[in-house]
Every structure is written in structure tokens, then in C-alpha cells.
């Protein structure tokens, strides 16, 4: 149900790691729980994220929620498309709805994250 090539945090963020680069976003479970997302506050390029620290905000019609970094690293790129089309988080959370790309820190903490199967168990029921 959740992409096998990603790792997941209990705060419902995902990370896709390729060498020292990572792409992060929120899971389909989080997007469904939030409802229609109307605004995303993106981090600044160059800012340093700490694993489990807040780095932005998603606003849906019913709530505003913090985004928690699934790994530590430095932001190299943000998904500018979300400024005008925040709904991409709902329609394609693991693809076009990515939020930021990071240069991973040495102690990025990837190993502490869940795989797809474990994450699916935490969201069941």
C-alpha cells in the first residue's frame, strides 16, 4: 500500500534516499487525515533541518499542522509548485507532492525510520 522504496516517520513523513540526497514529503495517510490542503509553508533553501524538528506547516480547510523533518540535512531545493498547487499533497503525495530535497547530514537518522510494512501497521486501525 505504501511505496517500498521509501522510509517513514511516525509523524507521517516519508523520505526517499539516493546517495547523500534525500527527498521528503508527507504520506498519503497524513494527506487523507488532513483533508483538502490549501497552503504549504515551505522551508528556506539553505536551512538546516534536524530530525523530528519542525520545518514548515501544512494548512488544510480544517487544521494547520507542523511538518516534522524525517531526517537531518540541509535544504537544497523546495517544491515551488506547491505555492500555487498545494493540492498536489492530496493528489500525489509520494510524487509531484514532494516538499523538499535535502543534502543529508552525516547523522541523518535514516536507520531510525520505518519501512513500508512497519509504517502500514502503525496506520492500520
Amino acid at each position, binding site marked *: 500500500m505504501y511505496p517500498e522504496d521509501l522510509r517513514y516517520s511516525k509523524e507521517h513523513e516519508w523520505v526517499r534516499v539516493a546517495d547523500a540526497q534525500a527527498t521528503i514529503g508527507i504520506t498519503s495517510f497524513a494527506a487523507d487525515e488532513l483533508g483538502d490542503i490549501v*497552503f504549504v*509553508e515551505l522551508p528556506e533553501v539553505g536551512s538546516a533541518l534536524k530530525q523530528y524538528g519542525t520545518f514548515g506547516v501544512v*494548512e*488544510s*480547510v*480544517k*487544521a*494547520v499542522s*507542523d511538518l516534522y523533518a524525517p531526517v537531518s540535512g540541509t535544504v537544497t531545493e523546495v517544491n515551488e509548485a506547491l505555492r500555487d498547487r498545494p493540492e498536489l499533497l492530496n493528489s500525489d503525495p509520494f510524487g509531484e507532492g514532494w516538499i523538499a530535497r535535502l543534502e543529508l547530514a552525516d547523522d541523518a537518522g535514516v536507520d531510525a525510520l520505518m519501512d513500508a510494512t512497519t509504517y502500514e501497521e502503525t496506520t492500520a486501525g
Partner: protein
Amino acid sequence: MAYTPHTAADHERMLDAIGVTSIEDLFADIPPAVRADAFAVPPPLTEQEVRNDVARIAGRNRIPEISFLGAGAYRHLVPAVVGEVIGRSEFATAYTPYQPEVSQGTLQSIYEFQSLICELTGMEVASASHYDAATATAEAALMACRLTRRNRVAISSAVNPQVRQVLATYCSGPGIEVVEVPADLAEGGSGLTQVDGAQRILDGSVACLVAQQPNFFGGVEPMAELGDAAHAAGAQFVTLVEPTSLAVLAAPATYGADIVTAEGQPLGIPLSFGGPYVGLMAARMASVRQMPGRLVGATRDAAGRKGYVLTLQAREQHIRREKAASNICTNQALCALAATAYLTAVGPAGLREVAELSMTQARHLAAALEERGLGERRLGAPYFAEVAVRLPEAGRRHAALAERGIVAGYPLWTHYPELTDTLLLAATELTSDEEIGALVTALEEVA
């Protein structure tokens, strides 16, 4: 709504549900040292005794026959229609309703208020109102900190001292440093904020520069230059303005204001021992999510009919809890409605007349004092409708005139030690030539 008191059985059930044995247990967290065992409350009085008592206390209020006191609150004509509108039972509450969308009339009135404030300031979005100028300005500083992710605030010392005090209080909690930009108060000085002083203070750590137009002394500040200084450092330019002055002075949007605040009291709200007043706030649309307080938006319902909603509520504390944009959870709906009724009644031409008459009378006042050799203007900058005048033994004469029912303005030395013997005198369209004559005569008599 029926008022149904809780019975002892109700208390039992509620205490049981939360797992405590007595109401006293609910206060267990309050240290005994700060708890009062008893209060020294006098015995009950009859209704007539209460009336007599309150009348006696109220009789100690001194309501001046003639007043030149301004310093942030101004006596203006309030057209009778203002009282008529706000006295209607549909409107006569200080609050936006808790189920706001069923009260379309209230929401529409707030929407009209926001539209008027945008028109007056030239800004893109206005809030549904704040408590007063001081809290609105303090909130604007916090908003600038959120927008810039910086935690220092620069504020001109020519901003109303009470506003500066409230702003300092608001900044003390989150640990925001407040730095004062000096004003030129030296002998022969302009009384204006020093632009080079602002430039020295503004750096990459400062979230905003707060300046007032006209400033606390009535002086017309070089707002465009101050705005440039703020923007050069990547800071927001927060401007506190006097709303009637906007009929004759440049709209804040034209000199680069990012956040505009104002005391709305001059717009149809009488002087009443300091309140209730109404704070105004307007900003750029790009900053709207960091704007504190409520906003009413216009929309269409499912059938395509025009309707009004409280919008962007997700920023507010009933949803975002401790992470809300602000802890303000209401607005000053009734006073905002008074301002709406006032602006609608006087219109653009009427507001301009109010501003021009106020300016004219302030000049008559200053000229009358100077011609009789009673005092001289202390600060050199062009002024709006309030003027700083130095006269010998100002403190003693101010007190002597108060005994005669004349308030000869605001003693500036209480906040600015360098402005010895200097009174801040305000005029409005209600300041008559006779009142100015009475001030001159009284000052001569107590010389």
C-alpha cells in the same frame, strides 16, 4: 437561554467523572501561600445604597469643560447616526458570534469595516479589528518577527510611550529585544525620528522598524525614508497612523508600509475614561497567514448567493492552540461598527474636512499662544493637529488650569525629561476659537 444552576448531585457526578472528591481539589495546584482564606468584602447593600455609593464615587470624576488633551485619544464629533446603528439589538454585542456564519449581517458589517480600512490605508487586507492601537502595534511587531524569522524590534522613541510600553510587554514573553531609535529632541530639533539613527540600528537581525505618523508630538515623519531604511535591512516597516490624518497625509501603502496599525477611536468613538477603543490593522496579502486576529471574507454559497465567512481560521488558537499566529481570540466588533458607521456617514469629503479643520484650529492655538508671548513651539517639524509648546512653569500652570476645568494638554516631560516645561496640545474640529481664547486668558491669569 435558561439559567439552570448545578445541583449538589450535578457537582458529585462531575467530580466523580474527573476523579476528584471535592471542588477544593481542583485548586490543589495553587500554592497555599498565594491563596486567600477570606476576602474583606463589605456587607450587602440595598439597590438604593449601591446607587448612592456609585454616584458619590462617580462624582469624584473631573470632566473638564475645555480640553486640549490628545496624545492618542481625540475628541471628535460623533454623528447621531453612529449611536443609532450600534444601538440596534442585532448589533449590540462586543463580539463576533461564536457560530458566526449564521449572523450574516454582523459578518457583512465587519467585511465593510475591513474594506474601509483598506481604502483608508491603501493596504490589501485588514483585520476585523483589535483592542486598541497599542495591542495592534505590539501584534504587528510579533507578526514582523514571524515573517522575517528575526527577533529584534526597532521602534522610534517618537512613538506614543504607552504604545511602546505595551509593545515591550508583548515582546518580553517570547524574548524579543526592543531597540529604540532616537528622535531629534535637542534644543532647536525637529522632534522627528532620526533616519540615520534608524539606519545605524537596522541590520539583518531586526524584524521591523515601527514609526508613527503623525508622531507622538504631532510631527509629520519622513516615512518614505524610514521605510527605505527598514527595507534596506530586509525588515518590515510597521506604521502606526492616526486615521483622520489619512484624509490629508499620504496613504501608508504609498510609502512602503508593510503593516499598518491605528487607533480607531477618532472614528466615531467617544472619549470615555480610556475605552473601549478599537485597534486597526492592515497589511499586504502576502503576509495574511501571519496576521493576527479574525478576518471576514466574501464568498458564494452552494446556490451561488453572496455570503460572508470567517476565513483563515486555521491560524487561530481555537484550532492551532499554542502554535496560533496570535493569542487574540476576539475583536472589537461594536467599536469597529461605530467606525464603519462614522466613515460611511462622513464620507471622504467629510473626513478631509475633519482633518483640515483640526489642522486649522491647531495652528490658531499655536499662534494665539505665541502672539501673546505665552509660549513657543518646542519642535520644528511640520505638524498635523497636535503641537508641542514650551511655556514657563508649565507644570504649575497646567495644574492650576485643571482646577478651573481646563486641561492644557499633555505634560511631555513625564515621558521625555528633555522636554521640560513642554505641553502637547491637541485641536480637533470641535476646538472652538472661544476655547482657545479661554486657554489664553487662563494661562495669563495664572502666570
